[in-house]
């Protein structure tokens, strides 16, 4: 835990450096409206990163999140095409997301297959279903208040509505993971599944639960994203798994499960948002930003590894000494 605390301190430093460099790159960077845009743009990723953290802490992974977002967007669109109200459509899309997550979770937890393989399969399956039901149509014409979710701000402030939604979920997830017995159980499962089972933790239900949560928040992300893009299509959020997993890993969550904090993931999400925004202001194309994102991930991990090696060496010295 000690190294993680230091890891988060390091991330705060990286965040500060990003803000400083951004300010140097463009005088416009530190304005409220720009920061607001930067944050609003990364919210779908941030929302999905919350359950992804839980999934990875459990020692699993969910590659299918982008496809679930796409499937939820497509379901929403189809409901709209059928003339259903936006509220009903949103609920239907939430149900579809949770169902998709439940299928992932059931196969992983109760059939016992590796989640990497299962969710590669459902990545194709869910995207395929989204394409079958919506084909190449794009559905627009959302009510004004719906359009506000993704792009609008709380009146009188620069705070995007989507950020407010994210913060609400972030608080719930953070309290759940770090302060409740169920959250502790997830860490136990990620570290030692067998010992968790012997301790009276229902491992399979917990894993099913995190995948359902993943599906549910994918539906929330689908709402934010369709609102942000003002259109629902079957290819919505293609490739979303990459930035989401990048954010979680950058946030200091071990890809092997059992350790990490949501605070770290939050800072990582902000770092990614501001890096991309600053690069954009400096005239760097989105493709080149991708390189920088990849470099940020790889470099921080190299540093993380070096820090861990140092810490392990120190630990061994202590153990030997006493």
């Amino acid at each position, binding site marked *: 835990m000690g190294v993680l605390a230091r890891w988060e301190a390091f991330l705060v430093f990286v965040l500060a450096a990003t803000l400083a460099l951004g300010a140097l790159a463009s005088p416009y960077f530190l304005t409220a409206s720009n920061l607001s845009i930067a944050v609003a743009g990364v919210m779908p990723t941030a929302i999905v990163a919350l359950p992804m953290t839980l999934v990875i802490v459990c020692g699993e*992974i969910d590659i299918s999140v982008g496809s679930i977002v796409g499937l939820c967007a497509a379901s929403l669109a189809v409901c709209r095409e059928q003339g259903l109200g936006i509220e009903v459509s949103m609920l239907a899309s939430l149900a579809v997301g949770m169902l998709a997550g439940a299928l992932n979770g059931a*196969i992983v937890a109760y*059939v*016992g*297959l*590796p989640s*990497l*393989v*299962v969710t*590669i*399969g*459902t*990545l*194709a*399956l*869910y*995207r*395929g*279903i989204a*394409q*079958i039901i919506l*084909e190449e149509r794009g559905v627009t014409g959302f009510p004004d208040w719906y359009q506000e979710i993704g792009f609008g701000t709380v009146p009188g402030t620069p705070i995007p509505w989507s950020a407010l939604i994210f913060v609400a979920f972030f608080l719930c997830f953070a309290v759940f993971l770090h302060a409740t017995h169920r959250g502790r159980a997830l860490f136990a499962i990620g570290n030692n599944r067998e010992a968790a089972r012997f301790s009276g933790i229902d491992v399979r239900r917990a894993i099913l639960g995190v995948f359902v949560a993943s599906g549910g928040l994918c539906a929330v992300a689908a709402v934010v994203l369709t609102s942000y893009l003002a259109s629902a299509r*079957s290819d919505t959020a293609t*490739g979303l798994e*990459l930035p989401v*997993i*990048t954010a979680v*890993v950058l946030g200091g969550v071990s*890809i*092997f499960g059992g350790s990490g904090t949501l605070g770290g993931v939050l800072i990582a999400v902000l770092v990614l948002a501001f890096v991309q925004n600053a690069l954009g202001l400096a005239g760097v*194309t989105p*493709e*080149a*930003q*991708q*390189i*920088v*994102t*990849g*470099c940020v*991930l*790889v470099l921080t*991990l*190299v540093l993380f*590894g070096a820090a861990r090696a140092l810490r392990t060496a120190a630990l061994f010295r202590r153990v030997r000494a006493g």
Partner: protein
Amino acid sequence: MSGLLRVREAGLVLALLVICAGVTLREPRFLNGANLEQVALSATLVCIVALGEALVIIARQVDLSVGAIVASSAFVSADWLSKHPGGSMVFVFAIGCTVGLAMGAGNALLVVAARIPAIVATLGTLAIYRGAVIVFAGGRQISATILPDSYQAIAQVRVLHVPLLVWIAVALTLVLGWAASYTRTGRNLYALGSDPESARFVGINEGWHLALVFVLSGLLCGFVGVLWGARFGTVDAVLAPDLHFQAISAVVVGGVSIFGGSGSVYGAAIGAVIFAVLQNGVQLLGLNQFWLQAVTGAAILGTVILYSLLARRAERAEREGRRRSVGLGLNRGVGAG
């Protein structure tokens, strides 16, 4: 080498034949020579990438950057050729392979030297390599019209009525399959994937072997990059966006355990062919193209569930076999107090 392995490959071939028969029943044109050739050609490129991916996964690693490497190799080599229209094809391949080799070496460096888990390291290089080639391309597309004919001829050459590309894929499958089963290095990869700690203990150089599989995977991707350009004529920086999923799917459906240590390169090759047939079948049967993804996903889920059921059954049989021998022991023999 065990009987189970051979049974698994026979099962895969059987599954392939069943799918082919099913498609043929509904649409006899499937067996048409031209169609079969299309299937074979679309299988080859994924197949070669899957060979490298299979070795990586057998060693308990994963390479997500294959698509980005293929695109980089394809674009860089085609770009050079468009500027040197009289250039030698050998040189084009050398450029493509060098790009692949270098990118594979980059992955190896991160996994072996920096000790970053492969899934995360190649997630990072996937973004870096893809971003690099997109920046290098600057939105350009290199179309067939500005490339010399000799380039595309690579994809059209036939030997014994079969496209050269197919022969290349078959040869690579046989060579790598043989190497994995019959060379010390190949068996060491299985040992590493099976139990890395024990493998280190018996003196297998883990770093060297992991570097080898990543570099080899990169090299194969570099090679495929050149073939990709030759086959499709037009090259841009965003080609093969889902290749890593296609390759991993072929490997997994081919019976290689995602946890390493078991499965075979041949299985991965058959897996690639199965997906090519499925793709062709969806088109031929006039199914909406949108069905392809869903069918692919269902095929992956179906096979892995089947494998796990088979493995569980084998395990149970083995356990019961051992139970029968319990209780036939002797006393501890030495002074029990």
